[in-house]
């Protein structure tokens, strides 16, 4: 019985192929847009949230928000490190790094337009603190030199970024000696060089931007935070590194969510209307058929279900097509300015199970909304009347 109904619905869709395809296509586009926006927002969040590590702690000047705005003096850095309880490295030194972060602008490869890029002054410990950062080409920068290593996204997206080439900023030429990959994390959009050399040329010797260290034990964070905040000499904020990067994604992902939801809301009304038109016409052209089915003993409920199935199929087909198309977006890397830091950030569209689920649910709901009224209309027809229309 159920299979019969399902087959009936499917056959009907097959019979009017053009209409079916057009309606499903409309729905597919809506699902595509809906999914694409979710993927974009997810991509940003994913890139930034995974950039930091849970056991790493970042200390910034009070209410600075981002590293570029923060300044921590040398003395304060000493105090912070004395509190830090950091893990010790194999060489017996604390796993802790004082870094400076500045923005420079570099021309992009395709458009030749300048974009802001993060330059991070690092120490050898900086690499140990972020084991995800791996050199994929060239060599590490030498301490005390003007060597720089660049993230993979920088190498891909900006002009003059081959190994051996020189970048000019802060009245100095810097030699690119290596390219690193941090596996789709925010660091891929950064340039790293020796902190002491960079601070000298940028005339930032008096202060660092942040102090970063790895906790001996992640659960000690709260106690440590209290200890640092209670120290009257310091005016700083203490955050887990992953939380710090996660916060940077908020503004962009909020913007995309508002934009995306308003758009899909409006579009989906359009798609529902499309489905409704299709389904109303399906009931209209099949009035006689419905009468015959009823006369054969099919119940109103079965007719209702048959038409609802039909429009659910329509929505389902649209959903699958839309998700299929959207999944290809994962191949693209988007590079845009993050409003919170004003710096360039490369990220990919990223799909996950939740997005697939909401895309599918969304398209089925659209199908249902479009089909329910026509289905009720079909189910309520009187046998005699509908037989007569033939």
């Amino acid at each position, binding site marked *: 019985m159920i299979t019969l109904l399902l087959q009936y619905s499917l056959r009907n869709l097959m019979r009017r192929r053009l209409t079916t395809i057009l309606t499903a296509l409309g729905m597919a586009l809506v699902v595509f847009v809906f999914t694409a926006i979710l993927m974009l927002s997810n991509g940003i969040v994913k890139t930034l949230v995974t950039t930091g590590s849970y056991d790493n702690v970042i200390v910034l000047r009070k209410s600075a928000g981002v590293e570029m705005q923060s300044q921590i003096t040398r003395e304060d850095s000493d105090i912070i490190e004395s509190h830090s309880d950091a893990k010790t490295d194999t060489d017996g030194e604390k796993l802790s790094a004082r870094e400076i972060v500045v923005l420079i602008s570099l021309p992009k490869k395709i458009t030749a337009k300048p974009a802001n890029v993060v330059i991070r002054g690092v120490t050898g410990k900086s690499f140990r603190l972020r084991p995800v950062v791996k050199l994929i080409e060239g060599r590490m920068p030498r301490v005390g030199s003007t060597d720089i290593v660049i993230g993979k996204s920088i190498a891909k997206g900006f002009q003059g970024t081959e190994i051996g080439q020189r970048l000019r900023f802060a009245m100095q030429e810097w030699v690119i000696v290596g390219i690193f990959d941090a596996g789709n994390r925010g660091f891929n959009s950064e340039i790293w060089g020796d902190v002491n050399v960079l601070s000298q040329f940028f005339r930032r010797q008096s202060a660092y931007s942040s102090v970063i260290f790895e906790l001996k034990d992640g659960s000690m964070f709260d106690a440590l935070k209290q200890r640092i905040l209670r120290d009257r000499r310091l005016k700083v904020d203490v955050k887990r590194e992953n939380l710090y990067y996660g916060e940077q994604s908020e503004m962009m992902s909020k913007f995309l969510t508002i934009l995306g939801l308003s758009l899909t809301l409006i579009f989906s009304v359009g798609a529902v209307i*499309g489905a409704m038109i299709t389904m109303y016409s399906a009931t209209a052209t099949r009035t006689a058929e419905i009468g015959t089915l009823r006369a054969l003993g099919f119940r109103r409920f079965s007719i209702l279900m048959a038409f609802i199935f039909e429009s659910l199929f329509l929505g389902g087909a649209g959903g699958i097509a839309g998700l299929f198309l959207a999944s290809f977006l994962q191949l693209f890397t988007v590079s845009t300015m993050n409003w919170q830091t*004003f710096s360039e950030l490369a990220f990919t569209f990223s799909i996950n199970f939740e997005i697939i689920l909401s895309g599918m649910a969304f398209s089925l709901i659209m199908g249902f909304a479009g089909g329910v009224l026509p289905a009720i209309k079909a189910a309520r027809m009187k046998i005699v009347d509908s037989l007569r229309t033939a």
Partner: protein
Amino acid sequence: MFLLKLIVRNSLRHKLRTVLTMLGVTIAVLSFGMLRSVVDAWYAGVEASAANRLITRNAISLNFQLPVSYKEKIRQVEGVSTVSFGNWFGGVYIDEKNFFANFAMDLKSYLELYPEFLVSGSQRKELLTDRKGAIAGAKLAGRFNWKIGDIVTLRGTIFPGNWDFTIRAIYKGRDKNTDETQFFFHWDYLNERMKTMKIAADTAGIYIIGVTKPELAAEVSQMVDKLFKNSMAETLTETEKAFQMSFVSMTEAILISVQLVSFLVIFIILAVVTNTMAMTARERIREYTVFRSLGFEPVFIFMMIAGESLLITATGGTIAIAATFPVVKVFGDYMSMFLPVFIVSTETIVLDVIISLAVGLLACVIPLWVTFKIKIADGLRAVA
């Protein structure tokens, strides 16, 4: 006349379907208009910039300061009429969620350079005499319900501490695209406190240069940059338009996706309307062939089908255009934190009209093709 009557009657035959199709067109044209307005809002800063204003900043990036002593040197360049300077302050009002742009500027010269900020004479005087005075845009003041005389506290992110200001003036925009969500206060006030805190005082993030004639812009910017070449802080001077454009181009990726989406929207409209017209034609093939066997020219049938399709899309489009204004306003209020200026431009309306008509015409291509392909004899036999 007969034709017109026929078209109207035909489109009223399936009232529900016609209304739904019309709504479909309305929704699609509406969302297209909204997306166009988002793109326009993106460029609002570029559009609002004047040809006779130049912006000078540190050549490395906006992140770096320039000595305030540059002011006098710049003023001496030929063709320069006014020089203003200041800093992006980046203060937070109560909570990060309340983001708005705030700057510490040399207010007297700044207001001279920006005649599009309309301030009453008395408010201007009050503002310029109060060291802790501030001026806010009308939209911003409305958002937080600020009145003249209110005290507003910003928490510094770049410049530490809490900063109290008294609202002394509220500006209105002269043009439709003037940004009314900004907040300015005296650079002197900032500088004094920086001095006591022993943090890099006497520096400015940007200089704004007024040139006597727009034609001199290129020449003046070259001369200014030459002045500071090989100094400790090299400058980069560009027109205000280019400066604003650099922000837009940095977020280009998002902009392109918004534009792509608006093309998709047109595609969806087309799909919906084509669908309906295809259905209509299929049902009426018999009628059309009757018309033809009675001796009506194909042109007549074309007019009949196209007329109906156009009537539907034009009505839908008209409703959409009327609805665009309130919808964009509500959406703009939501987005004011990200994109301060939201207006419906004339081009958007013109494009809306073109799209509605084009979709109406394109939608009847398939039905026409079906109708003319079929032989009269087959058509008469056809059952929809």
